[in-house]
């Protein structure tokens, strides 16, 4: 979802607190041929390949949403500092509330993880974008690297306002009958319930070494999943695959589940719970 104005309107009516757009680049990009998405035992495997209509066309979609009463976070991807900086500026001009740097796509050559595993580059991109735009800048990082803390620190050094963790986990599915990887791109990113423990661990570790807000993502399907991320140190969570598992209304449902849990456990404010697992 969130590839066009209409679908963002629908997500808004389902109680989402904010909407993160599809990752947008400078030029239109078709993404990979199908199969691009399949469901496995405990999660969703995708290699969409960053399809998007390009920032100029997408700006027109976003401009239709000016009246939307919730913040839109514009996700962008690029191949280098110049692209990220230009995209961030263009994204800011559409009126979005914040920009998210996708430096962690696990299946797009030269556009994701290759950038996101280089601390120097992450710092420079973040710094350059921060200097160019006035809106908050979030950096979305990958779990498919060994130096996740170093990358989070680099984002902070580049003056990132928040870190988003995690992107999907690099994965593959091979069909036994045809002896063929099912995804057209062969390798994809795994999301959904299966990756939640990985996301929780990453958020927990980042929270220990970086003191900027964190947004937890990866397998949030229920209110309890969201609370677990909050206990690990997240101030907010993102939801994707759960739209498949529980329908578009999942945002309403999860909000209710969080409220219910808090009431049962006598909490009045979520902020009491942020990072509580570190005590």
């Amino acid at each position, binding site marked *: 979802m969130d590839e066009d104005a209409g*679908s963002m309107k629908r997500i808004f009516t389902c109680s989402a607190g904010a909407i993160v757009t599809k990752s947008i680049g400078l030029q239109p990009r078709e993404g990979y041929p199908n199969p*691009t998405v399949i469901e496995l035992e405990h999660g969703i495997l995708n290699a969409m390949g960053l399809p998007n209509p390009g920032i100029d066309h997408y700006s027109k979609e976003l401009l239709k949403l000016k009246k939307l009463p919730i913040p839109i976070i514009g996700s962008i991807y690029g191949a280098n500092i110049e692209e990220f900086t230009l995209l961030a500026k263009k994204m800011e001009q559409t009126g979005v509330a914040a920009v998210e740097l996708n430096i962690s796509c696990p299946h797009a050559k030269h556009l994701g993880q290759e950038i996101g595993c280089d601390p120097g580059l992450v710092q420079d991109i973040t710094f350059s974008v921060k200097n160019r735009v006035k809106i908050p800048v979030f950096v979305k990082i990958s779990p498919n690297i060994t130096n996740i803390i170093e990358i989070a620190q680099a984002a902070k050094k580049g003056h990132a306002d928040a870190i988003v963790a995690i992107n999907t986990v690099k994965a593959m599915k091979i069909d036994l009958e045809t002896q063929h990887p099912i995804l057209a791109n062969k390798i994809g990113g795994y999301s959904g319930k299966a990756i939640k423990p990985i996301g929780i661990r990453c958020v927990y570790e980042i929270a220990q070494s970086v003191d900027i807000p964190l947004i937890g993502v990866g397998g949030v399907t229920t209110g309890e999943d969201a609370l677990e991320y909050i206990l690990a140190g997240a101030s907010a969570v993102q939801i994707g695959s759960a739209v498949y598992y529980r329908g578009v209304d999942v945002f309403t449902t999860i909000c209710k589940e969080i409220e219910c849990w808090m009431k049962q456990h006598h909490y009045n404010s979520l902020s009491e719970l942020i990072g509580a697992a570190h005590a």
Partner: protein
Amino acid sequence: MNIPTISRITKSIKENDEVKTFYFNFPGSVSPGQFYMIWIPGVDEIPMSVSYIQDDIKGITFRKIGDATNALFQLKKGDTIGIRGPYGNGFTPKGKHLLFVGGGTGVAMLAPAVEQARKKHSNTTMIIGMKTKKELFFKQRLKKIGAKVLVSTDDGSLGFKGFASELARDLLKKEPFDAVYTCGPELMMKSLLNYCKKIPFQASLERYMKCSIGLCGQCCIGDGLRVCVDGPIFNGKTLQTIEDFGTFQRDASGKKIPL
């Protein structure tokens, strides 16, 4: 799980120079109007409506128009394809006197709906609209089950000369129908909707699809209606509020392009 099951083509019928029907053993229920994702390994995976339903035997009928359907067209009995699904909502025919309007390969997915209506003893009329006579298929299949079949061709080589929607318009003036069901070129369906504002109307829409499970947003129309999950069948009331209907589709990048 939404993962392709490798299935063998048990029968292949060439309907005309460019249209084939493949039959395969694929247990599980499916309603007319629903679709499968058909995987041609190494080529592509594309949505295809069910065109034949008989217990475990299901069928798809397709025209060779692109890379995927051309590759599919080369396959024969005994070859394998990957199938996942069924997906989407399906038709919900109601009434005693029903009109089905199919344009081109749209006829294929209406056929099982007509068969289902006949089983329930509805009085059923089917308009088959083609560009020209030699493209005609499924006429005998539908006549055999007792549907009244009318043919229109753009060039007048068979039946009514003109579009299927025009033939339907004339028919709707003469006969009282309880409901209209259609699949075909979107502009044809849009004009048909104009003649059906007072009776229940359902149309099957086609959009570029990727995930088919409501996640990726590629096939969204209007205010976030996912053709793969919320459709592909939409009623007239909904369609009248969707400005994309008959106007825009979106390419693989998500960019809006005129239909």
